[in-house]
């Protein structure tokens, strides 16, 4: 099989939109995974990409499997027989270099593969992004799984809650120049949050959003819960901005609505700077997120009841030590 003869194989059948079919195909392949692999090729230049795709399709005839596109634009041969795929890889390395290919075992690398496929729905970082008029359509086309960030809350008995909220950094990266506008990000965040509850009602989507975990409580943005009439008691808590404190009338309305629906509250997020500006004793009942950071002084915590606090941290180790010292039971990390 020579490279030049393959380059002439035209036209190539169309490949589905990035990531669209990857999840189902991958799950299917994982069920009969023994001795099979996923082969990935990163090829940027159009002529190499065409060639790589043709090679994979040719390979699929012999090694089995299906050619798909990965979240990062990589071409994937999903479910190929291991030994033949290994030979195909050698051929592809002559085309794109050794760093341009990857091989996952469907037996051993299932978790990594699923994580990779989940990224399939993240908005791609973009230098251009949508223009303003098309923003709503762009947001509506974003699949939730790749834009909702998941954070894990741990208590004394292990998993205490899961926090699901749109990931502003990922959305901003996909938005291009518009991503620098905090008000537009708020808008996108609210629109995505409003889709959370319906998605959680669908078992398949819920599994992906919850990452296979079974939390007893879910912390969600207020926009996700504002339309809910009555919630299962104790299941949901709504995240409220601290700025609501200076709008007492609206705060009272929001609190009354949430209480009537059986939804708890989590105030977000106090940090060293905010603690210096407001009297924390004035915060209404409910949990309070407290950002763990270098400026946070354990001496500033006493007016707050530690049992109401969630210590929010990027790095779990130091945060756990701080929480133990301050008597804070709940620690929230990226997991």
């Amino acid at each position, binding site marked *: 099989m020579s490279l030049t003869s393959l380059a002439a194989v035209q036209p190539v059948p169309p490949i589905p939109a990035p990531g669209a079919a990857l999840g189902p195909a991958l799950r299917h392949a994982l069920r009969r995974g023994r001795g099979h692999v996923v082969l990935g090729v990163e090829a940027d230049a159009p002529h190499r990409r065409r060639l790589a795709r043709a090679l994979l399709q040719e390979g699929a005839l012999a090694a089995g499997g299906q050619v798909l596109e990965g979240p990062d634009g990589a071409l994937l041969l999903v479910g190929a027989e291991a030994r033949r795929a290994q030979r195909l890889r050698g051929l592809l390395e002559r085309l794109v270099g050794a760093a341009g290919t990857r091989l996952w075992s469907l037996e051993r690398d299932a978790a990594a593969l699923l994580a990779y496929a989940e990224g399939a729905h993240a908005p791609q970082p973009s230098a251009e992004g949508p223009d303003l*008029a098309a923003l709503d359509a762009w947001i509506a086309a974003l699949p939730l799984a790749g834009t909702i960030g998941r954070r894990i809350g741990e208590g004394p008995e292990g998993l205490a809650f899961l926090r699901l909220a749109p990931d502003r950094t990922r959305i901003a990266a996909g938005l291009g120049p518009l991503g620098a506008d905090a008000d537009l*990000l708020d808008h996108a965040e609210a629109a995505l949050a409003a889709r959370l509850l319906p998605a959680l009602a669908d078992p398949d989507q819920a599994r992906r959003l919850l990452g296979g975990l079974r939390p007893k409580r879910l912390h969600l943005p207020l926009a996700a819960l504002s339309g809910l009439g009555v919630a299962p008691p104790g299941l949901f808590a709504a995240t409220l901005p601290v700025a609501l404190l200076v709008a007492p009338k609206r705060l009272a309305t929001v609190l009354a609505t949430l209480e009537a629906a059986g939804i708890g509250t989590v105030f977000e997020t106090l940090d060293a700077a905010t603690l210096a500006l407001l*009297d924390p004793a004035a915060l209404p009942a409910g949990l309070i997120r407290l950002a763990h950071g270098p400026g946070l002084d354990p001496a500033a915590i006493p007016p707050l009841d530690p049992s109401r606090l969630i210590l929010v941290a990027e790095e779990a180790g130091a945060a756990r030590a701080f929480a133990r010292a301050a008597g804070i039971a709940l620690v929230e990390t990226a997991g």
Partner: protein
Amino acid sequence: MLPRAAGTDAAAERRARAAVELAALVRESVAADAMREVLHLRLADLAPAQRRPHHRRLMREQLDSVLAAARARIFDLPNGDMVAIARAPAPAIELAAAALRASLDAAAAEAVRRLRLPESAAQLLNAAAEALGLAPPALPAAPPPEAALPFGSAELAAAERALAAADLDPVTIVQAVCRLDPEGGEPALAWEDRRLCWPALGALLLPGRDPDLAPGLARRLRRAAEARLLAELARPAAQAFWRPVGLSLSAATLTGPAFARFAEALPTGRRAEVTLGLGAAELLAEPSLLDAAAGLARRGFLLALDDLAPALLGLISPLLPGGGRAIGLLRLAWEPGLPAAMPDRLAALLAEVPESVVLTGVDRPAAIAWGWEAGIRLFQGPLVERRRRGL
């Protein structure tokens, strides 16, 4: 007495005719499905002291001046009510309503109603019939649920284009901040507060749509409007007729390029004549804004904490003026309960820096009396506007 009686008769006849014409216009509007914006001033909702003929005349003059350029029809009904109608979109109607409300006490703001034709035809026909004494005053029908048009990014993009060419003057509310002294004397103008009237701006740029449907998009539009306002204030023509000014800006505007250009264009000495209002909510959400505020204060601007309810003073006391902080002024919103419960924090503030408080929303003499007693000398609100005009 005869001529006067005859004149009164003629006036009564004119008013009765106005009511009939109003009814005809409403029916025609329904028949043609023509969208019109309506303002209805109900005298019955005003306190008796505000229903006197000279008050009525002043309100009529106010309507005339705001609506002069808007091709609106104004109907003077037999019971003294006034109805102004203009073809939609008519931001001037919203502005007229805002202007009337600004000159009325808070309790009387209900008297100014905003309606739309053809949806509210029944209510207006009732009003016309009631004014003619034809029908018992019916309970005001609940306004029909507005079929709100969507407000999304496409509408925002169109609104931003419209804003670039829009005249902001008709949607800007100007209220004076005046120094009033217990010893008497004329109210002395300290500066003019210029604020965009959001309902009027919304009616101008997004007719028939509710900006609250998408708060994030509405905030972006607001920022664009603030940038326009700043650009116009910096123009040489505006600088030639300069008056000390008070602005209320969103945090993003204050730290953005529009404000940087404005500050650059302003002669250094004038910075002290610019008061910049910041919302407490924005400061709480983004405490680093205080550093930006401190920078602006060092450059000579006067930073103000915007329209704060008295009950919140204790909650965010580290933001209040005094002690060399960045915020130099507190705009305190008047509430009738203030004299009965003076917040401790306010007493302490006034003892430390008495010149750092403006009492806003002043709509009754009791507010000024209390302010004087507490040591406040700067006032803003409907009553201040009336006093400036010598009423």
